[in-house]
């Protein structure tokens, strides 16, 4: 039996390792995944296999190349069926990993829309040698050359001596010192990123192992480890899945942060070339995708998984196995999204993936396909999560808990999942269209065939706007819980809080067009979305004022989560105010796609969502682990992170108004010839970059706090903060199942909610009577025969 367990665990790990191994496999092609057919299969138009009788040669290579110097190369071949008198003699294709080719005469031409690939022209078909120029790159990297030549018999058909081809590879080293300085090999950002990810993974693995060791120091052996790890891989317990989500979310939050740092290093000074444009484009794409889909969503799901069943007094979610399914789709989807990156062909479309660039097979990267594929899996995951949570909240509330007695965090998860669930199919369909366009050649976004790029924008934002509310609304719920508990009052205006949240949820579907004010969308739609977008400020304002009023007359205790909640109020209010500038179309034409937008959405997504979840971590950590967190470290984390955070994002407002555009590899400071950004912009950018590093590092205080507290924190009581909802009723950490016993098909001892309010019983109104008639009466349990 025990042997069985370990073999299963090994098998599961082996399968995962196999999948992991596939990723580097694709990067072994010189151009990454897929590649152009010539690079991988040779001159497939001539013959299936290469032939050694054809000898390719390049003359004119230096011993070592000097940066930016131009060299005249001569490509030639001998052998094969080519001989004088043939109609054609042959051709070639030369690819370099870097530098710029330029044709010198009409016999050669750049190939494949790239300056690093050159081939013969039709006129060049009549030669066996060709001359061309190659300009060396600025960096000191080794440059690889791949030369394909073919020797043809000139009859256009494969008769007589068939056409033959061959390949030759060259590597050219850079010379240092010729232009004065010794340039060290430039750090390859992907290598750095890969190293950092591997280090992070190793740290996570060590932490897991150490956690396992701590759980039973004496029994540390493979026989006990394999069932332990297998249990985590196969669990359907909402608390364990919540923890998995939570770890995945924090992991990707770190990865996304690392990518943000790369971006900031690049932008620290104008005209910087730390990243190439190609790399920069991939980094901001992956940064957005990672943060929204792989960091924010799993963190939300982590807390939702942990807390929703506890708060409504349910033993588990309605469909635990589906819950496990929606978790495991995420890491595999993440793997697909990241697949392209390490081959240098990662997705480079921005997280919005606008058509038609996303289906551009020439300039767009191959990684876009995998970006779409990975996202499809995340869509599937979100759909399953939605089914699960909506059902759970609708049907498994404890006795006495009506809709209007649910804790606000549960309400926020309900609203968020409803929005996500109804909007994400549009995104899924859009992604499937993109995936099929890129893979099998459908023409949804092929403008030449009549495709409409705006369709993607519509499908994306029909999902995308509800999605940004999906990530902020759970933070509303957290703040409501934290502020009320810390003020030791019940939340002010519970009902208006719920209606405001529901209102935001419904309006989210109408306002999405404000992302497309300058996209050539129908003016009627622009007008409608402008007005409704402004209206979103009303329910959001209600929430802010209710939170403020909650403190009134209370006795506010400053704990770390209180600090984060107050910090949230500051940053979210600022983000909300700057958000009011965009629905005004007249101003949006200037501010759209500028750093003002970047500042705005980081204020609401970091200052809102992330701060909300930091508050949640400090608030619920004792419940989840049974250990109290260190308050001094927590306060230090808040102070450093809050200050450096504002240092990162506040100056961006002004940069945006000045005219600094989003998603740009660099920015231009005014010169005598033209005006763009004022010189101070460079200083501010440097300031932002420095602050970004501080912000990134400050969050490790929290990670350290979590680890230290887990190991030596004091034991947490069941209700450390004085909250009222059910999660504070069970022990810390809660047992499995969290509430009740299941015996012979019946649940016993499920909690019941009491209500401190006196309810005035009145005759139900017309609507309530109608609605009550719709419901199944208690005695109507017997199914009517059909």
């Amino acid at each position, binding site marked *: 039996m025990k042997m069985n367990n370990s073999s299963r665990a090994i098998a599961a790990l082996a399968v995962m390792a196999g999948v992991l191994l596939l990723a580097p496999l694709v990067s072994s092609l010189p151009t990454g995944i897929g590649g152009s057919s010539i690079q991988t299969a040779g001159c497939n138009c001539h013959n299936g296999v290469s032939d050694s009788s054809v000898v390719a040669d390049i003359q004119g290579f230096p011993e070592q190349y000097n940066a930016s110097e131009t060299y005249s190369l001569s490509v030639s071949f001998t052998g094969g069926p080519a001989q004088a008198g043939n109609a054609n003699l042959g051709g070639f294709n030369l690819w370099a990993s870097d530098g710029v080719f330029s044709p010198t005469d009409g016999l050669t031409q750049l190939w494949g829309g790239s300056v690093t690939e050159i081939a013969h022209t039709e006129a060049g078909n009549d030669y066996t040698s060709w001359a061309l120029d190659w300009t060396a790159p600025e960096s000191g990297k080794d440059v690889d050359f791949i030369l394909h030549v073919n020797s043809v018999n000139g009859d256009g058909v494969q008769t007589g001596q068939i056409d033959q081809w061959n390949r030759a590879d060259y590597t050219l080293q850079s010379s240092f010192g010729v232009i004065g300085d010794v340039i060290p090999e430039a750090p390859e950002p992907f290598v750095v990123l890969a190293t950092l990810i591997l280090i992070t993974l190793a740290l996570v693995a060590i932490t897991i192992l150490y956690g396992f060791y701590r759980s039973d120091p004496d029994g540390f052996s493979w026989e006990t480890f394999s069932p332990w790890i297998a249990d985590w891989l196969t669990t359907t317990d909402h608390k364990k899945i919540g923890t998995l989500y939570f770890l995945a979310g924090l992991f990707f939050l770190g990865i996304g942060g690392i990518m943000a740092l790369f971006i900031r290093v690049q932008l620290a000074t104008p005209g910087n070339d730390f990243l190439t*444009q190609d790399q920069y*484009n991939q980094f901001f794409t992956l940064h957005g995708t990672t943060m929204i889909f792989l960091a924010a969503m799993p963190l939300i799901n982590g807390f939702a998984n942990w807390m929703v069943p506890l708060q409504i007094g349910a033993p588990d979610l309605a469909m635990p196995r589906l819950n496990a399914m929606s978790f495991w789709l995420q890491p595999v989807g993440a793997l697909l999204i990241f697949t392209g990156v390490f081959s240098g062909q990662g997705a480079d479309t*921005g997280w919005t993936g*606008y058509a038609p*660039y996303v289906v*551009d097979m020439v*300039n767009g990267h191959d990684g876009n396909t995998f970006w779409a594929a990975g996202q499809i899996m995340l869509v599937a995951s979100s759909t399953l999560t939605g089914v699960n949570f909506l059902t759970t909240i609708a049907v498994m509330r404890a006795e006495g808990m009506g809709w209007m007695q649910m804790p606000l965090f549960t309400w926020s998860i309900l609203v968020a999942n409803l929005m996500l669930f109804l909007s994400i199919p549009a995104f899924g369909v859009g992604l499937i269209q993109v995936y099929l366009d890129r893979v099998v050649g459908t023409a949804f976004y092929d403008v*030449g065939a*009549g495709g409409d*790029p705006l369709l993607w924008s519509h499908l994306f934002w029909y999902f995308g706007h509800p999605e940004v509310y999906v990530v902020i609304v759970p933070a509303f719920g957290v703040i409501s819980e934290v502020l009320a508990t810390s*003020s030791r*009052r*019940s939340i002010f*205006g*519970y009902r208006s809080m719920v209606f405001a949240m529901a209102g935001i949820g419904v309006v989210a579907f109408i306002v999405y067009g404000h992302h497309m004010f*300058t996209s*050539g969308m129908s003016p009627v739609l622009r007008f409608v979305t402008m007005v409704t977008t*402004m209206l979103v400020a*009303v329910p959001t304002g*209600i929430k802010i*004022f209710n939170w*403020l*009023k*909650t403190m009134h*007359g209370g*006795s*506010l*205790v*400053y704990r770390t989560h209180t600090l984060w909640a*107050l910090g949230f*109020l*500051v940053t979210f*209010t*600022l983000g909300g*105010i700057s958000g*009011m500038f965009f629905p*005004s*179309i*007249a*101003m949006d*034409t*200037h501010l*759209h*796609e*500028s750093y003002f937008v970047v500042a705005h959405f980081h204020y609401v997504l970091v200052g809102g969502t992330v701060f909300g979840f930091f508050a949640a971590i400090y608030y619920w950590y004792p419940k989840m682990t049974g250990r109290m967190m260190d308050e001094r470290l927590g306060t230090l984390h808040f102070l450093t992170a809050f200050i450096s955070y504002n240092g990162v994002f506040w100056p961006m407002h*002004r940069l945006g108004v000045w005219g600094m*555009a*989003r*998603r740009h*590899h*660099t920015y231009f400071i005014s010169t005598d*010839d033209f*005006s763009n950004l004022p010189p101070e912009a460079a200083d501010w950018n440097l300031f932002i970059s420095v602050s970004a590093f501080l912000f990134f590092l400050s969050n490790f205080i929290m990670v350290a706090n979590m680890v230290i507290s887990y190991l030596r924190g004091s034991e947490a009581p069941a209700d450390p903060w004085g909250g*009222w909802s059910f999660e*504070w*009723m069970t022990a810390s950490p809660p047992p499995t199942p969290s509430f009740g016993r299941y015996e012979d098909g019946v649940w016993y001892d499920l*909690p019941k*909610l*009491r209500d401190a*309010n006196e309810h005035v019983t009145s005759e139900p109104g017309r609507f309530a009577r109608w609605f009550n008639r719709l419901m199944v009466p208690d005695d109507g349990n017997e199914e009517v025969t059909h």
Partner: protein
Amino acid sequence: MRVRLFPSLGDRMAGITPLFDNLWNEYIIWSFLVGGFTFIWLYHHSLWYKSEEGEDWDNKDGIEVGVFPKHYDNFTLEIAWTVLPFFLIVYLALISWGPLDAIWSSAEADGGYGDQCASGELSNMTWSESEGRYVAECYHIIYVEAYQWGWNFDCLEVTVPDLCEVGTAVIDGTPAASLTLKQGEVYLAAMGSADVTHAPWFVSWGVKEDVLYSQGSMDLNGDGLSDNLALTENGDYALSGSIGELGLMTVWLPADNVENFLLLCTEYCGDNHAYMLAQINVHA
């Protein structure tokens, strides 16, 4: 008149076109008012109602585990901060609505800039205090085409070089297109894209608009030109149909100041996106 509330900031905010200056100022004022109100409230409450861990406190709402606490609400207050912000929103929506006519006027509908200028005619753009926007007698149509990664301009039927001239400039060491316009003239840019979606940002005028790749931007008739343009008898180019028929995007360019700025692309379009530049000159 360009009114700037915060001169020290305002001079730097050259980005906001004068049409929207007042709007920007109004929004800034309300931001300060709303933000100030909220923050004063926040700081007051968070300090005034402070208490310490372990101190005695008054359990006003009957908070107890497993019991839904007493409602703490005040209907009048809640309605007040629903309705008052709503009025503010309505007001802001109304003032934001006004300038829309200046952006949305198309060549087909008179939008305060008159009709298309005859050859050599001048716009005579002036600031209308009553309407809070520029008005002109007529406008010139010019053509802007985006491609990966650069810009093409064409003056179309504006043949007077003083009014519109296309040239090249060197920006940051690389050659790029340049467009020279005349101060006091209004231009309607008809814009197309040759490949993917781009968006020119005329930073100093505070306008941008996506240009979409469309059927018209292709060269289906094989004359080496995008089909948006057709060669006229005197050797110039003209639009091959009406702007609406061709599905071109349009944007108004009221050249109000003598200046010289960069045209950036603000819809991500691929590798060289950040260096997709052109230079716009406005001369007196």
